[in-house]
């Protein structure tokens, strides 16, 4: 098999798996699990084979034109370069892990067949996005991912939160996708093709007619998909979906698609300094804001969701300083350790019977109950906090190194201010990231109080996956020396200055939170808090669904908790309340968008009901009234009718005579 054929099979296999899973769902329930697992696993292996054959050499392009469209042609094109093949390996591996994990996590779920099929379909769409060399084909995958995300976030549709979150995720990402589509058309108009290599060539030669406008339009779609400020609000709410979905879609892959797209189209963005400045500002605001918000969240998955938003901010920051190697490096390493964190969080939620950190802080010995999750998550949190020598340290260093490079004015066409913005925000976020990672770890695993209930060993399908993802979390950092060959060739190895600075920031964050926790931990015993849904016999998803459904009732809000023993509350002080609510961005959106829309809807309803319908009703009732008046003449007396008839004939006759005589 040639590399191209293998690459074409990679997105095709999960798609066939999805179709088969849907068809087999009712008729052959025994086939559902193999159909979910095998195509994805084979696709992952094939993605590795493609990566091996491609080997980071010259980009492979293959295309076939299905049908002429008349104007700008649409090709089924593959574009295999170092970025594409490596991201595809990440997607394949994480999707396989998630499918395996789901077999245990949703083992008794009646909707498991459709769930598994949607995850397969999603995997296929993401692989299509990664390999596609044509923006239109990429857009197909992009939208299929969106709709899969909608369905999967709403998997627990019995709970209000899940229904609302799925709608919100869909609408907010669509809000970005509309400008994105216009941007794609603008690009195609300038370049005369939807092929990415053609567009990149056009952009590199400076032939774009409106580079800033086009880049900003594309940026809207990227902000929606990759959950960047101000379109990030859907991601924390999307945590109402099942944990494996959060791990696959809302941590490792789909949200990274926006970053990946900018990486592919970087010359378009580099053609406009203003777009890069906007990208940098967006990244900086996203990074710092989400990190502060993460420090105030109570739901363990929402902490991780805000963390994802922040780490995606690092990636866009790296793109803003023009280093897509660093961005994709961070994308891959973040994908691995964040998927691990989410899957570990699923184990913790099952074992603890709650998703609330306030409740786990009052639970002793949780770490002993789930040793696999404890050890792997500890390392993954260290990677998230960028503590050497784990993978997160190296990839974050690559980003910060690129930012420092740009800040020194050594990068072509990137203003120093952009570099400084990303660098300062990145260092500040490094501190905050370490702080919330430490808080998560302390509250989840170092709680004191009543012993956690023993629910027996976690299923092997769930724990083994954690150890699979543990390997890249620990060792991917070593790739920093190897990856430049696959990417653009820029150095990704840590530099001394930024390493010292960021590690210092991270350690400071860890120490501050630990000190705060020592002061507040004593309070846990004094203020009892927490609701635990114990379903040791059921599938883990049941505990999670109950935890999501009861969180608002038990703790007062979906995001925060009234917990005085929270070190985040002590550190943030009066800011805590606002950070827990995501800085009230939802309220702002409500005031700016939702309320005017509702008002407009009311106006439209008024105009329709009271104005337009009045004419319609009038058209019916006026003849009705006339008819009623005429009906009165029907007395039933024949002689009356005849009299009127006679009178009429006389009148007519007189008239006829008068007309005839010419009077």
């Amino acid at each position, binding site marked *: 098999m040639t590399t191209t054929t293998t690459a074409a099979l990679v997105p095709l296999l999960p798609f066939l798996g999805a179709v088969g899973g849907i068809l087999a769902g009712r008729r052959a329930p025994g086939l559902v699990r193999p159909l979910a697992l095998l195509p994805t696993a084979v696709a992952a292996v094939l993605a590795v084979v493609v990566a091996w054959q491609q080997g980071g050499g010259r980009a492979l392009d293959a295309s076939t034109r299905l049908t002429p469209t008349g104007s700008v042609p649409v090709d089924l094109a593959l574009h295999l370069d170092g970025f594409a093949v490596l991201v595809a390996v990440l997607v394949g591996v994480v999707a396989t892990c998630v499918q395996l994990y789901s077999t245990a996590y949703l083992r008794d779920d009646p909707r498991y067949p459709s769930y598994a099929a949607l995850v397969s379909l999603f995997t296929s769409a993401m692989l299509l996005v990664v390999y596609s060399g044509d923006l239109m084909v990429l857009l197909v995958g992009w939208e299929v991912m969106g709709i899969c995300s909608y369905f999967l976030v709403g998997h627990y549709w019995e709970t209000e939160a899940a229904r609302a979150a799925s709608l919100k995720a869909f609408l907010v990402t669509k809000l970005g996708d509309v400008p994105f589509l216009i941007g794609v058309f603008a690009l195609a108009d300038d370049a005369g093709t939807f092929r990415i290599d053609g567009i990149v060539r056009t952009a590199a030669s400076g032939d774009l007619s409106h580079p800033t406008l086009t880049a900003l339009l594309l940026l809207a779609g990227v902000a929606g998909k990759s959950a960047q400020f101000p379109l990030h609000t859907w991601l924390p709410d999307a945590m109402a979906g099942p944990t494996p979905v959060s791990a696959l879609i809302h941590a490792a892959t789909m949200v990274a698609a926006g970053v990946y797209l900018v990486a592919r189209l970087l010359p378009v963005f580099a053609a406009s300094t203003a777009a890069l400045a906007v990208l940098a500002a967006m990244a900086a605001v996203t990074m710092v804001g989400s990190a502060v918000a993460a420090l105030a969240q109570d739901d363990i998955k929402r902490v991780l969701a805000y963390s994802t938003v922040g780490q995606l901010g690092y990636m866009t920051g790296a793109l803003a300083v023009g280093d897509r190697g660093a961005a994709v490096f961070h994308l891959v390493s973040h994908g691995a350790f964040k998927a691990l964190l989410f899957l570990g969080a699923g184990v913790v939620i099952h074992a603890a019977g709650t998703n609330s950190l306030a409740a786990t802080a009052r639970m002793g010995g949780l770490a002993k109950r789930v040793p696999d999750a404890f050890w792997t998550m500890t390392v993954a949190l260290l990677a998230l906090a960028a503590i050497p020598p784990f993978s997160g340290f190296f990839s974050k260093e690559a980003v910060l190194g690129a930012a420092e490079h740009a800040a020194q004015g050594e990068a072509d066409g990137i203003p120093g201010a952009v570099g400084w913005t990303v660098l300062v925000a990145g260092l500040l976020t490094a501190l905050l990231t370490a702080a919330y990672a430490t808080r998560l770890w302390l509250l989840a695993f170092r709680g004191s109080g009543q012993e956690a209930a023993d629910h027996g060993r976690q299923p092997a399908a769930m724990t083994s996956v954690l150890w699979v993802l543990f390997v890249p979390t620990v060792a991917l950092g070593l790739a920093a020396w190897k990856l430049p060959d696959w990417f653009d060739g820029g150095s990704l190895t840590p530099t001394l200055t930024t390493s010292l600075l960021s590690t210092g920031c991270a350690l400071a964050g860890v120490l501050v939170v630990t000190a705060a926790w020592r002061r507040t931990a004593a309070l846990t015993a004094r203020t009892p808090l927490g609701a635990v849904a114990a379903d040791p016999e059921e599938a883990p998803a049941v505990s999670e669904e109950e935890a999501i459904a009861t969180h608002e009732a038990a703790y007062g809000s979906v995001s925060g908790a009234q917990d005085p023993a929270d070190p985040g509350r002590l550190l943030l002080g009066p800011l805590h309340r606002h950070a827990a609510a995501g800085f009230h961005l939802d309220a702002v959106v409500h005031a700016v968008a939702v309320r005017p829309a509702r008002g407009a809807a009311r106006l439209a309803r008024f105009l329709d009901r009271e104005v337009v319908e009045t004419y319609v009703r009038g058209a019916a009732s006026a003849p009705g009234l006339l008819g009623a008046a005429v009906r009165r*003449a*029907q*007395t039933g*007396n024949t002689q009356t009718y*005849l*009299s009127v008839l006679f009178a009429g004939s006389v009148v007519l006759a007189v008239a006829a005579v008068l007309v005839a005589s010419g009077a």
Partner: protein
Amino acid sequence: MHLIYPAILAALLFCTGLYGVLARRNAILVLMSVELMLNAVNLNLVAFDVWLRDELHAGQALTLFTIAIAAAEIGIGLAIVLLVHRNRGTADLDRLRDLREDETTDGTTGATDREQKAEAAS
């Protein structure tokens, strides 16, 4: 004979018939008045036919038609009146007012009316 005599006679006959149709209450008398009006027309037809000296005598031919049709009409008319009288016990036009528009446009009364009529017909 001058045309004026049959014309006046026809007019008188027609007016008598018209008065009978519009004013009499008994259905049979109304039918008879209709015959009077028809005969007034016949008289006119014949008179004008003679006065115009029509070669084909279209007026007289038409009169024969009218008489035949009037005979058929009065036959059917009398049969209807006879049936109405048998069913209702009256042939009084003022009281045969089932087709009048009710003051209330309520569907239920209309339905009961129809039921009564159905009973009466059976």
